[in-house]
């Protein structure tokens, strides 16, 4: 709970984590209300208190209280909110490690002086940066510090009765009066029945009925903010107990979900790598179709991967059509199709005549419109010296001004072109190597010009180094494998947040008062007054008019709907004055709890 402020005793916390209300302006004490001299709905003029005032008397506890009050004030929350927005900007402008590591490397190459500085500031991983975490953790702490006390207050308020009816209902923002033949007490009890039937909370007194409705607004408001806290916790849980992985899978291959079989494995802090869900996936077939003509030519139309999978080593295998937007879910883990390419197949015979390599090598696309792909073939078993090839695969090779380029992503005229090297591949140097790059430090280029090979064609290497044959190609797919136990809680939190938001925007908290007094001629004069605390979305005037009409009809016996309620003036004469002034005028001549307040 927010303590009594050390600077000067008074009430009030941040009235709204956000109020999102506007008729009841929270008495945000941290903000000296300089610009708009508004009288608050609860009558509290924020005379209070530049934060530092009177701090000389503060002990450590006082300082803590003061700091906590600052942190949970609406102004701090607003500042943190905007800081969060501003802090996100570099994450979308600069390349991010978590999104596109290759772009970060490119940035390093392009800006060698600047990049290390940016890296020190965590600007390549903004959303994992400590300063970013500091902002959102402070924001959520501020939120919690506001939401929890308000929840307690809401529970308290739910048990309280509505306030007494003010003396002069005509001074309320909404007012009407009529004359009924019923005696005052009967008129009141009929009004009570009608309002109670509309699920107003009632309180009766001598000559008046007071009714209140719309507590769900605050419920929705709190639900929204608590759900946001839950969302953050869910995201955090997912990051700790979940993992992400990638795997490139050539047609005909299979893999089991173990860290060694995965190309990239990013476990959360509390994931034990030996205990992953033991499923396996095999790729049987992959097909892609592309737009063949028109302005969208070369763009993909469909990707379709036929896989077989089993949930555990001894479980039955099942078939699944893996597509974009159609992931495979097995054992709580989702497997997504996120990319594809070609793996040309080669057969290498070395100088001694032995077949030292025979298989498919995944090449990585370097452009999308023709899927021109690059890759390397490493043949460590070749004798007399190891062989290496750097190649380009063109799915649909066409001659463009003497240069061979790929014109279409589907393999209509596949060609592969290889540059050959011999020497030491450096695989035993102890340093890990990318399978997509050749370490040329121990290699020399063989004096044979690369020429495009069609399927089945071979290239004989000079000096009896051997022969390489382009035997075919197979498609490969890349899979993203994610396990995120925070997903469902995050979804539920999101739905609750949205429900709370809508509730707090749609519901208005309002009060209706009825007073009946005996008038001349045995008639009873009934006055009805209405007050909406927060009616941003509008509609209370209509509701009140209808209510007043119903009340009158119920007590009249005759449906005289046309008679308008004589609505009192708004009380705000001058242009531009916020309507809250009107509620204030009410609270001033009534007991302290008339105007609806957040707190106390």
């Amino acid at each position, binding site marked *: 709970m927010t303590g009594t402020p050390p600077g000067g005793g008074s009430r009030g916390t941040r009235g709204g984590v956000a109020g999102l209300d506007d008729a009841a302006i929270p008495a945000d004490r941290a903000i000296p209300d300089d610009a708009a001299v508004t009288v608050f709905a609860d009558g509290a003029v924020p005379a209070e208190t530049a934060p530092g005032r009177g701090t000389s008397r503060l002990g450590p506890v006082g300082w803590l209280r003061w700091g906590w009050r600052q942190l949970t004030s609406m102004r701090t929350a607003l500042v943190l909110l905007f800081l969060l927005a501003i802090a996100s900007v570099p994450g979308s402008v600069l390349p991010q490690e978590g999104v596109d590591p290759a772009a970060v490397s490119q940035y390093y190459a392009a800006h060698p002086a600047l990049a290390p500085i940016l890296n020190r500031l965590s600007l390549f991983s903004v959303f994992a940066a400590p300063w970013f975490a500091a902002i959102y953790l402070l924001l959520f702490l501020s939120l919690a510090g506001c939401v929890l006390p308000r929840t307690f207050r809401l529970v308290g308020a739910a048990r309280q009765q509505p306030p007494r009816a003010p003396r002069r209902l005509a001074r309320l923002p909404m007012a009407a009066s009529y004359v009924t033949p019923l005696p005052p007490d009967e008129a009141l009890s009929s009004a009570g029945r009608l309002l109670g039937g509309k699920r107003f909370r009632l309180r009766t007194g001598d000559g008046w009925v007071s009714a209140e409705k719309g507590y769900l607004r605050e419920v929705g408001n709190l639900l929204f903010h608590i759900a946001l806290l839950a969302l953050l916790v869910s995201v955090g849980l997912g990051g700790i107990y979940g993992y992400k992985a990638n795997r490139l899978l050539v047609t005909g291959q299979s893999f089991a979900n173990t860290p060694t079989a995965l190309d990239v494995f990013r476990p959360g802090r509390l994931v034990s790598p030996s205990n992953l869900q033991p499923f396996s996936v095999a790729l049987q077939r992959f097909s892609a179709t592309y737009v063949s003509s028109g302005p969208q030519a070369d763009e993909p139309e469909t990707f379709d991967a036929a896989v077989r999978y089993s949930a555990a080593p001894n479980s039955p295998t099942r078939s699944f059509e893996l597509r974009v937007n159609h992931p495979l879910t097995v054992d709580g883990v989702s497997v997504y199709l996120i990319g594809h390419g070609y793996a040309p197949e080669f057969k290498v015979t070395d100088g001694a005549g032995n077949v030292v390599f025979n298989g498919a090598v995944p090449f990585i696309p370097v452009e999308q419109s023709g899927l021109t792909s690059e890759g390397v073939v490493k043949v460590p078993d070749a004798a007399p010296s190891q062989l290496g090839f750097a190649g380009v695969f063109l799915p649909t090779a066409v001659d463009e001004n003497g240069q061979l380029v790929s014109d279409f992503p589907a393999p209509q005229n596949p060609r592969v072109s290889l540059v050959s090297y011999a020497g030491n591949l450096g695989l035993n140097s102890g340093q890990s190597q990318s399978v997509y790059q050749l370490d040329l430090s121990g290699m020399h280029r063989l004096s044979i010009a690369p020429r495009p090979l069609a399927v089945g064609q071979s290239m004989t290497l000079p000096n009896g180094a051997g022969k390489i044959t382009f035997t075919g190609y197979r498609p490969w797919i890349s899979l993203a494998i994610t396990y995120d136990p925070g997903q469902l809680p995050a979804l539920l939190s999101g739905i609750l*947040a949205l429900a709370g938001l809508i509730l707090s925007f749609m519901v208005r908290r309002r009060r209706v008062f009825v007073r009946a007094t005996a008038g001349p001629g045995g008639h009873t004069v009934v006055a009805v007054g209405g007050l909406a605390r927060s009616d941003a979305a509008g509609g209370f005037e209509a509701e009140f008019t209808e209510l007043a009409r119903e009340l009158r009809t119920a007590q009249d016996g005759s449906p005289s709907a046309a008679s308008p309620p004589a609505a009192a003036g708004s009380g705000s004469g001058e242009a531009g004055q916020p309507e809250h002034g009107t509620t204030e005028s009410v609270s001033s001549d009534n007991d302290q709890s008339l105007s609806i307040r957040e707190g106390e």
Partner: protein
Amino acid sequence: MPITINHGLAAASNGFLLSTVVLYALGMLAYACDFAFRKERLVAPESAQVSELVSVGPAAAAAGSAAAGPGDPGQSDRSSAAGASAGAGLWPTGFWMRTAFGLTCAGLAAHLVAIVTRGLAEHRVPWGNMYEFIAAISCMAVLVLVAVSIRLGAYYIGLFVLIPVVFGLALDVTVVYTPAGSLVPALNSYWIAIHVTAMIVAGGLYIVGAVVTVIYLIADRNERRALAGLSSRTEGLMMHLPGTTVLDRLSYRTILFAFPVWTFGIMAGAIWADHAWGRYWGWDPKETWSFITWVVYAGFLHARATAGWRGRRAAYIQLAGFSCLMFNLIGINLWVTGLHSYAGLSG
């Protein structure tokens, strides 16, 4: 299975969208003529304020008009309030305003036909690239304009909403134009109908909110200058506009509608991203900016409930949120590559 584009329908759609621009442009001129030639004030600012505080249902409108007896100044003031800006089904008054509103409605009809025929030509939801998205979001903005005009009698915003719509659509059919085509596999999901539709609805509402906020800022400056005894060049214009309270409330209400829809759109996008890319949130530039937009608009809502931040400051925050929205729509599509690079402009 390759999808055949119906080129006849696609051409018809282009024709309808072109007519839409022309009709909106004419409507814009007619709105301007209304401002220029209207003799009486369009809205009585003070009384309008009272009733614009809340939306008044038919009962109140009927009550108001019933009470509008001649020689009863107090009551007639109230009824004019109800007549000016409250009640369902308020029709425009004056030749130019009627013409303007008629042209706007005709343009809207052509706009809707253009979008529907485009969708039929492509056999899909017609918001798969930037051209289609701009066409849809401007349609939503005009839809909001028409709804707000009829429901709240806020005809005075017509000119101000149509100006950005006409310019946006004119750029859309010339610079941004993308021929009808099929969707890339990543977009080919029923989630496009949910996620992008929500973003379009929220976007249209945000546009109207921002436009009203700009008028609010001008009106506020005017009012403050008037209080200081200064004149301003926009006085003539302000003659036909309601007071700041009404404008502030109107823009706030559009945001109250837009914000939950935007929230829903982000959530739907997250679910879709989870289906398509294997994570529900990955700080892709588009995601980041929709988050920034959300945060700034949330800041606006909070600021509006905080003393000392309401009024002009809150208005500036809302405009900042709108700038983020526009940057996300235009800037991110054109300058930043990410998973959401579907604008269809780079290919």
